[in-house]
């Protein structure tokens, strides 16, 4: 059990955890947090693949590591966009729910 395999297993576990959070948390911010945990699990998988590719005097294969850096940047941009959307939704609607017909239901209630 070396560091790389351990990190790979942690990565798999983090993917499972993150996925569970994304599926079950109703609040979008919590979904987003879980998504980030999920993403970092995926990046760790890349990390173990890089580590197993150590060769030619390099401690790890640089290609997957570089992909992880690109991936982190994209995940951050996505998080920022989602947070902005979420804050705007809350500002407009005073609610952050993701239920599909939330606005329609509220309109119905206020009509009644």
């Amino acid at each position, binding site marked *: 059990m070396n560091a790389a395999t351990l990190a790979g297993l942690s990565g798999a576990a983090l993917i499972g*955890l993150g996925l569970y959070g994304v599926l079950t948390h109703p609040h979008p911010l919590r979904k987003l947090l879980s998504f980030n945990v999920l993403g970092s699990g995926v990046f760790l998988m890349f990390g173990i693949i890089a580590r197993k590719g150590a060769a030619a005097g390099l401690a790890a294969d640089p290609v997957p590591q570089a992909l992880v850096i690109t991936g982190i940047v994209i995940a951050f941009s996505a998080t920022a966009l989602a947070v902005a959307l979420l804050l705007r939704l809350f500002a407009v609607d005073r609610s952050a729910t993701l239920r599909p017909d939330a606005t329609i239901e509220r309109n119905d209630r206020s009509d009644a």
Partner: protein
Amino acid sequence: MTIIEALDIGLAFLVLGVAGWTIAAHEAFTAVIGYVVYGLLLALVWVRLFALDVALTEAAIGSGVTGVLLISAAVRLRASEAEMMHERLGIAPRLVAAALCLVAAAALAAVVLDMPDPGATLAPQARQPLAELGLGNAITAVLIAYRAFDTMLEKVVLVLAVIGVWSLSTDANWGGLAGPTRLERTEGPLAFLAQLLPPLGIIVALHIVWVGANEPGGAFQGGALLSAMALIVLMARLREAPAIGRRWLRVALISGPVVFLAIGLLGFALAGGFLAYPLGFAKPVIVFIEVFMTLSVAATLPMLVIGPPDRRPS
């Protein structure tokens, strides 16, 4: 079991524990604090995986800038949480979800254990042209030479994210100062920090960009640290965020992808192909691109964190 193995196992459990806490926490704010800690621990894990470049990125983004973004979001969204309590799932759906996620995680774990070690690698191929490019850091070579195209597109993604965030403003507020309405500037420790830290941070960031050619570091990591310095100045309200229509801001935001694209197209004329670097001049060209990428990252991340303009243009 050697001591380093024990440390690795302990670290793995710690990371999993904090991640579990982030998922399971009752309040969003607590979960976010957990995530900040988690980002820090991940940086340690990346150091153990001999991915110092990634560790730097994770430190700057994962626990730094993302932390700021999520903490302020959690505070602003506090009022929304109570209303959503009743949407929590019952135990049966949770179990179904848990079972499905367990299957997915188990499959991935099995696959990881099954992978050959040493596995497939491009390390020898990636290492060979380093001297010709004048670089010592193979990751920088991947990012800015072999897969330069991806890196350029990733910078375009950042610009698109800014447009997306800005588009969430209102018609009336378009052209106003970026970010939410703020109170008057603070005095005291925060202002002190915000005056003292940026000069130091700029030195560190430039150092990290500069050594990126040969050592861990590079444009993105340096740019992210610079953006953190800009954020702390904004948070202490020493400076107002610029209006989104300011020309210098727009130029700074796109400077990275535009310079990258322009040099790529110049490659047609000078080096026989798109994103090809002229023989013997690769290093200066790469440094030139990195400078502008640093600038645009440093300008982009604060814009993404502080959000759309929320005030009428004056």
